[in-house]
Every structure is written in structure tokens, then in C-alpha cells.
């Protein structure tokens, strides 16, 4: 099973608008958003805006890059 990304713009109510929809087998499993300069030390990192079917966490995590985010999402989908 592999993940597919699709660029999207997200209305988060902040300057964090550059996003990626994450699909698995054609089903949407997460929405990632690239953090804007508003987040200083975390600018450029990827934030899990929304996740489904286990690819979620109450205090939404932040990832260094898209690869790290996808690894985390895949691990969650695999139930690890």
C-alpha cells in the first residue's frame, strides 16, 4: 500500500494555506499543511491538519518534511 499526494490550498484561518491531500487506494486519509513563517522555528514543517482512520492524534503532530509525515501516516494505517 502506498500513499498519493495531491496539492491543495487549505483555509485554516491562518497563513498556513499550502497543503497536500494524502490518499491511500483512492481514499482521503489526511490533510497536511505546510507551516508558514508565522511559526518561526517550525516554518516549513508539515502539520497534520486532519487525519482519518487512525492517522490522527488529538494534539495534531508536526513533521520535519513530507516523507516523515507519510511514514507516520503509513505506520498508523498499518496499525503499528
Amino acid at each position: 500500500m502506498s500513499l498519493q499526494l495531491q496539492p491543495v490550498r487549505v483555509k485554516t484561518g491562518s497563513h498556513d494555506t499550502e497543503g497536500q491531500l494524502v490518499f491511500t487506494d483512492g481514499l482521503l486519509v489526511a490533510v497536511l499543511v505546510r507551516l508558514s513563517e508565522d511559526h518561526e522555528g517550525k516554518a516549513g514543517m508539515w502539520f497534520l491538519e486532519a487525519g482519518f482512520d487512525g492517522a490522527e492524534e488529538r494534539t495534531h503532530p508536526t513533521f520535519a518534511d513530507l516523507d516523515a509525515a507519510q511514514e507516520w501516516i503509513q505506520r498508523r494505517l498499518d496499525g503499528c
Partner: protein
Amino acid sequence: MVPTPALSLNMLIRKLESISRLSDEERRAIERLPITGRHLAAHQDIVREKDRPSQCCLLLEGWACRYQLLSEGKRQIFSFHIPGDIPDLQSLHLKVMDHSVCTVTQATVAFIPHEALRELTAAFPGIAAILWRDTLVDGAIFREWMTGIGRRSALEAVAHLLCELYVKLEAVGLARDHAYRLPLTQADLGDALGLSNVHVNRTLRDLRDNGLITLHGGKLQIDRWQELTGLCDFDATYLHLDRGAV
């Protein structure tokens, strides 16, 4: 300089008298409590989960918090504490700590032996009643935090906490004119409210952009108190202070 017993105990007397008047005899008994003063660095544990403490910690200067560590390094903060508070008062009657207490900022504390507190409360039921009332107010604050974590939006939860801290600090003379020093990081706020740092950052920015608060150099100014309290339905009744901030 390590705080003198007289100064430390004055803080305790002031705190207790903010709840109920003490008789001269009660005040003298408190002044005789054997205490040990200490300076602590920021982010230092005062007492840890599973500890069996033999003393309580009166906070004289600085901020502290109660917290619990979860797996994967997650942390839940249960409460923030300011001078005059005894964050581990429960250890007087509950032998094993079910959470930890640490400093948030540099702090000065005074440790009071359990034995001395037990003798004091046995001899003076009025003092025992004041401490009991204090733990009931603690419970009221926990209920409000449950509502905040479970039912308020990120914006409402952050706004509510900023209002609560102002009213508490103002009551002990550490805040006025809707301004105070806020030594909490965005991570602290997130850990207290069950929010990600990103959400806390966005929320503070929202409050700032809408002209409700100014946050600069660790100092918070609430520019529009009525609107901020209205936004999160803040009602200070649960703090059970004699007078509320307006």
C-alpha cells in the same frame, strides 16, 4: 537569598486570610511553623509522581504547575500555580503522589513538614477548614478545565485560560489594569489545554489580530477585557474569590 521564615509565613497568612479571617492565636501558631526556604531553577521537579512526600511546598515567588507524563513524552498540565499556592497540599492526606509538580519559572518555595501542618490543623479547626475550602476551589477549577478541554474551541479555551490567570493574579496583587507577566510558552499552553503548538500559535495570533490582546516580551495586555470574557463565556464564580475582576 533564601527566604526568611517570617517572610514565607506571612505569605501563607496572607493567602489564608484571603479566604477567611484568622484569629491572633491562629496567626501566631502559623508563625511558629518550622519551614525550609529554597530557590529553584525553572523546569525543576518539586515532587514527582509516586513520591511519598513528608512536606508540602508553599510557592513564594515564580510559577509552578502540576503535570503528568504520558508515553511518547506527552505531557498533560493539570494546573498552573502562583505565589501563595500550595500545589501539593493533597500530599498531607494522600500518601502517594498521583502526579508531579514542577517549577515553570525560577521560583522560591518554602517547605512545611506534614507533621507540623497536621498538628496545626488538629489544634485549629478554623485553619483546617480554610485549607479544605482551598482544595474545594481547586476542584472547581479542575471542573472548569474539563469543560475547556472537552467542549471549548481552541480560541475559547485559550481566551478562558488568559482570563482565569488574570483574575487569579490580580487577586494576589500580581496583576493590574488587565496586564500581567505571562511566563508560559506555547508548549505549556498546549499541554494544559490539549492543543497542538500550531493551534495555540494560530489562536494567539487571532486574538492579537482582532485587537483583544497584546503579547510582547512575555507580557500580556488584555486590551478588550469585556470582549475577551464574552468570547469564552468567562464567569469567575468558580474561582470563589471575594471580589471578581472587572
